[in-house]
Structure formats: C-alpha cells, structure tokens
C-alpha cells in the first residue's frame, strides 16, 4: 500500500493508504482528526468541508493521493491556539450552532470565502451550499456578515 506525506493542521504526517481512499477516512480513521464530519460521502452535504492549501475541499470526495505533499487544514486547525478565527468568533457571537454537526463544514466554507473576498454580498452567501438540517441559515448569514465586517 502506498504512503503519503502531507501537512495536517500544521504538522507533517505520513499515512499508508490506498491511493483512492477519501481524505475524510484518512483524517478520521487513520489520524483521529474527527472535526470533519461524514454526512453524504458524495460531496453534496459538505459537512466535511476543509481546506487544501487554503481553498475549500470536500474530503469525502478528495482522494488522499491528491493531497500528497499539500497542506490540509480542518476545523481543528483553523484557530491559532486559543485565539479563534474571526469566523469562529462570529459563530459564537450569533450562537449559530444547534446540533452543531454541520458547523465545522459551514465555518470552513465561510472562512474560505472570506479569504478570497472582503466585500460579501447576500449572493455570495447564497452560494454556500452546505446543508444545515437544523435550519440555522439565517444565523449563519448574520455570522458571515459580522465576521466580514471585522476582518
């Protein structure tokens, strides 16, 4: 079985895995990184949303081989120590989470959006397609706007 080396949340890791294994299972089952959640396995619910070199990916449909030598950031790696990312702070300020299961993915999607764009419109937020089955969308919208205003 091939081995892959990558940076996960700032730390180099090496794993043995089939080339086509989804990054989600490498993270969750091999590395014990459990922040990214399984919700669909086909990249449509986006609960596992994380970053590859700072850009949004869905680890459930990203083969581990594509991440070789790259930098993977999950929700666990978004904050700098105890200093939360502004998007996380905004999530607390708006008390967004209900069951909380989709929120790591929602936060990573919002953080990726705010990296590329400073002026956020409602249309930009509408394009975030992450499912929140508790229906917290309006608080997510407010949190993204609040984070954008502070960044």
């Amino acid at each position, binding site marked *: *079985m091939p081995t892959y080396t990558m940076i996960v949340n700032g730390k180099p890791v090496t794993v043995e895995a*089939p080339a086509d*294994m*989804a990054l*989600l*299972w*490498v993270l*969750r*089952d*091999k590395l014990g990184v*459990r*922040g*990214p*959640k*399984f*919700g*669909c*396995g*086909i990249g*449509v*619910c986006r*609960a596992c949303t994380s970053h590859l070199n700072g850009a949004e990916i869905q680890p459930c449909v990203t083969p581990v081989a594509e991440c070789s030598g790259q930098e993977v950031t*999950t*929700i*666990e790696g*978004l*904050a700098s120590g105890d200093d*939360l990312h502004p998007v*996380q702070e905004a*999530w*607390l300020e708006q*008390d*967004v*989470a*209900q*069951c*909380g*299961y*989709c*929120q*790591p993915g929602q*936060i990573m999607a919002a953080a990726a959006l705010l990296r590329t764009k400073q002026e956020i419109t*409602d249309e930009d*937020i*509408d*394009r*975030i*397609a*992450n*499912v*929140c*089955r*508790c*229906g*917290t*969308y*309006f*608080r*997510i*919208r407010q949190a993204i706007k609040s984070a954008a205003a502070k960044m």
Partner: protein
Amino acid sequence: MTCDNEVPVPEVRAPVRRRQFLTFLVAAPVLTVAVPGTAEAVIPTLPQPAEVLDLGDVLILAGTPTAGALAVLSVGEDGVVTLELPRAEVGQGITTACAMLVAEELDLPLGKVRVTLADARPELLMNQLTGGSNTMRSVYGPVRQAAAAARARLLAAAARKHGVAVERLSTKDGAVILPDGRPIVYGLLTSAAAQLTGTFAAQPKPAEEHRLVGTPQSRIDARAMVTGQFKYTLDQDVPGAMPTVVRRPPTINGSVRSVDSAAAKAMPGVLAIGVVPTGVAVVAETFGQAMAARDALKVTWNAGTIDALSDKEIRAKLQAAALPFVVPPLLTQHLDMDFDFAFVSHAPMETNSAIADVRDDRAEIWAGLKSPIVAQQTIAAAIGLPESAVKVHVMQGGGSFGRRLFFDAALEAAQISKALRRPVKLMWDRKDDMRHGRARAASHHKLRATFGLGNVLTFEHRVASVETDFRHGLGEILTATAAKLPVGGNLSFAQTVFLTTCKVPYNFGVVTSLLNEVPLRMHTGSWRSVYSANTRGAEEILVDQLAKKMGKDPVEFRREFLKTARQRAVLNKVVAEGEWGKAMPKGFAQGIGFHDEYKSCTACLVEIDARDPKNPRVVRATIAVDVGRPINPRGLEAQMLGGLTDAISTTLRAGLHIDRGLPLEGSYSQFHYARQKDAPLDVKIHVMPATGEPGGAGELGVPAAVGAIANAYARATGIVPRSFPIIFPVDFEPFPR
C-alpha cells in the same frame, strides 16, 4: 334550488333550503358551551381534547411518580455543579436551558454548571423520553427543586461549620455569604453538605426573582462545536470498535437470501463480514474500506414488505381511507378542500450510528437515543442478556427531528457485535439513512367548513395518514409493548397522540377532527410536530380561503375567530412587526399562519418571491411566539428559526418519492432540504413576555409557518397549493438499488 340569503354565494352552489339552514343555525349554539373570554359574535367551539389535556400533560403525568428522582445534581470540590439529565440533547438547547435553571437556583455563574446526559435509567420508567416538546415543561419543576435542595444543604453545611443561623446566610456567585460578607465557595462546603443527615425544605425561587432564567444566553457547548472538539457518537474511541457498515436490501424490509463475500473478504482492510437481520455487515479498518467491501458483496435478496407500492397506490389508499364528513354540503354555504403531503425524511446530518461492545456476559452501547430505556430493554432481549448487564450511554446527537426516538442503529450494532464477536462502530450511509431510515408518514386531508351570516358554523377535518410508528411507547417496555399489540396497539396510540396534539384554535362552531391510519409495513416515525405540520398547515390554508369566501382579510378573519386574547396578542404582534398589508411588487406576497399547541402559541408572517412560480423563495419572515415562560429566549428563537426552515423545506421542495418499495431519494442532492439560497434574507422573532409556566417550544414553529408559506404562495401566484411539497419533480438520477 339555490340559497337566496344575503351572504356571498359560494362558488360551489349547493341546493340549500332556507328552513334547513335556519334550523341548523339555531341548533348550533345549543351544542356548544360558552368559554369565558371568547368573542360573543362568533359561534364558540367546545374545547377539543388537546385543550383539556395535551400530549405533554400526559407525558408529565406518566413521569410524576419518578419526578423526584429525575435530576441528579452533584457539587464538585472545584465548585462545578453537574446535572445528569435524563433527556437527549440533539440540538434543541435543553442542556443550556437546564444549566440556566441550576445556575439560577444556586446563584452560580452559568459557566460553573455542566450538564451531562444520563445513561438509560430504567427506574425512571416513563420519565426518560425526549419528545412531545416536553423537556422544559417536564424538568422545569424537578430540576429547580433539586437545585434548591442542593442550595439548602450547602447553606446548612455553612451554618454548622461557622456556627451561624441559616437565616443569616445568603448565596452569591457560587458561594455562601457569611454575615460578615466573607464568601465560602461551594466547593469547600460540598463534602460537609453531603454528610448532613435529614431533609432540607427548599422552595425554588419565585419566577419574579429570576435574574438569569428568561435572559438570552448562548449555548454552553458552542465553543466545542465551532472548534471541532465536540464528540458525537462516532467521534469517540472505544477500544477495539472498528468501522462497520451494512449492505441493505433493494426494498424496504427485504432480507438476505444469499451472500457471496469472497471478493469483499479479500479487499484491503476488511476485518469481518456477517449476515444480520437487516443485511450484511462489513467491519474494516476504515469506513472507506468497509464501504468499498460492502459494494463488492454479491447478495441476493428476499422481497420486502411494500415492494408492490409506489406513491400512486399509497395515495389512492389514503384517499380511500379518509373518513366521511358528518355535515352534508347541502345545508348551507360551504368550502371543501383536500390536500396531500408526501413522505419526508428526518435526514439528520449525523446519520444513524451507534457503537456496541457485546460480550458473553455484558454489553455496552453508545448512541444518540431519545428513548434509551426501551432501547436497553429491547437490546437485552435481542442479544440474550439480562437488562442489568446492558449499559446504554446516551450521546448528544447531530440532529433528530424525531428520528432518534427509534434505536434501530443501537440494536443493529448490538446484533452485529454479538454475531461477529467484536466491538463495532456502526455508521449508516446517507443513502441508507434516507431509503431505509424513518420518514414522516404521507397523509391525505379532507376539510369542510360551513358558514353563514358571517359565522363559521362547522369545521370538519378528516386526516388519513400512513400509520405513524409509535412503537417506542413512552420510552419503556410496558407502553412500547402496548403500542405493539395487534388489537388497539399502535393505531390507538396514534389516535391518542393525534387527539392530544392537534386542535383548531378558532371558534368555528361544531369542530370535529378525525384521524384514520393505513398500516403499511414501512419505517415511519414522529417528525417534528408529528401530525400538526400537515394537519394544522392544511387548516391554515383553508382558513385563508374561507376568509376570502366570506369577504374578509386573512388577519381580520383570524383575529375575529381566535379563541383567546393571548392568541390575538401574538397575532397582533406579528401583524405589526411584519407590516401586514404593505404594498408588494407583482409576484411577491405576504402570507400568515397561526398555531397553538402544548400551552404555547405562535404566528408567522412570511414574504415570498414567487415571480417564477416554479422557483419560489421565502425572502422575509416575522414570527411572534408565546411559550408562557421562555427559559432561554435565544434558544427559543433558534427553535423557531429551525421550525421555519423545516416549513420552507417541506412546503416548497423536500419530500420522498416512493417507487416500488423504496424511496428514490438517497442524498441531499435529491431530497431537497433547504440550503442557504432557499433561506430568508431577513428573519425577526419576537418572544412575548413571560406569563406562566413553560409551554412546549421544540415543534411549535413548523405548522404556522407551513400555513404562512402556502398562503403567501397562493396570494402571489393565484394558485392555491394542494399537494406538498409544491415543487416536487424527480429531477435526479436515482442511485442504483
């Protein structure tokens, strides 16, 4: 012969003879009892069962004998107070609200309270069920009592230790305050307090002295959630428990005929494969490998239980099952309407999952469970162990919406663990969760209202529903067994739930609501607001059409016919805040809905953009809510927001198509639960001031919003929706079976 009186002529002209009409009109008030405080002009309606005793009251009554044992509180030497709560947190925010109750009674900072979910406690009998919007109603008394008693003990311990009378002591910020002002923190008193003998009389604070309860607070578990540290069932490590999935049949309740697992067994990472009652289980080193091996299995299947049924046949069965009206249409002016609602997946983000470690002499289970006692009892029987040898841990769940009343994943995990003789970490795939999981039952509704001289004379609602499974009972084996009995059984359980939840909030003369259920052997279950979303949603649509026929504005009409001043205050609030009646561009419209259940009421006013009737969006929503006593208004607003999103989803786009024994939908790309692009750009929720005891809140938000959205759609497009979801094409290629 047509009616020649002065009220508007109905579209459907009924042959009404004047004498019969008048006789009926005179007769109607004789049948009714005036309720104090009701408007005089309208024909009052007798209280319906749910007004006298609602499902929450039933659950509280069932829990009364064990209420004293409900809340287990401990005060640690670090000053942290822990409440072990025998309920399931699945996103409702009950752990935060309960922490607030404890903090309030103990004069403790909220951050010093921890709430954990209790394991299954069979001694609680019917008092460990999370459902019926009943948590805060049922724990408000017991949790405050327990905290007040703990405070009394801490005070007594301080009094003894420092030789002062208890009356001269007070509490503040997690400490007993001595007469000279010195604080003694609880952590220093807990050991002495635990050793005190005797009972300590303590009354919870009167509500008017509350300083924390009733103020908006953020979730106590929010930081763990936004940092990815929060642990759901599958995020835990249980020694030896490896990723496990199940290959499931091509139709609901199908079973394994034969398996060829040779290819799958040889695949990398595969640890074990075995047949269980629900399919073929595969254990592997990672879920990715388990799923790959699952897909490589060659399985032949026995038929399921509804293989011959598709939506068309089910709908025909429902239409045939709707009971007849009592009032014939020829007596007076009337309005008849009928509605259909599709099956709806619960689809919580965290799929059905559980960890099980079954040994020869004991077992341990971890899962999100809303009825853990009956889970423990059923699992023990299934794996042949005494109940006391099965430990069931309740994990916080990633959503439920009624789904986790059922413990099928926990039972299945236990069966796999026993069969394969190893601990397992079981996860359902999304496709299976939607196709073989539970769903809100499809229903058909027939409504008839008769009216004349400005009054509604009769209001009849006939609900025909696919049987909703209540075989979890009241959470323990006795009532669960009663719900399984062939005679009475689940259908009479269903009648009780229907009668104790659904009520018409208006004075509509003689009101009758009847449920008839069609038993089909498929997996249904209570879905947030159970019967009310469809039943009350349909009624709110009829109310709008009735108002139109009677020449009245929908809001004026509701104001006139609502039963109580409290209901009208909620309506008035939403009308004022939501600017009812303002000018809207073409293709846009407002819509309103009202709902009253579990001692709470709410009104919802939405604005819809339906310029393209095939692509509507609710763009703004205003909600007013009166729950009697909000514990945490911020949490209450979250519940109402969730209810609104559920209503947007199920009214406009989210449903399941049943095709030859299986739902076609297998993921969120097919089951169209709302996304951000479907959600309103503006939502305002107004919480009415506290007036009494807490009412229900978890399910309250759905039915009024269903009515409001459908009514707004009708007003914007001129098309009164009759079938839900309104936009419901099979716009996807279904996954292979």
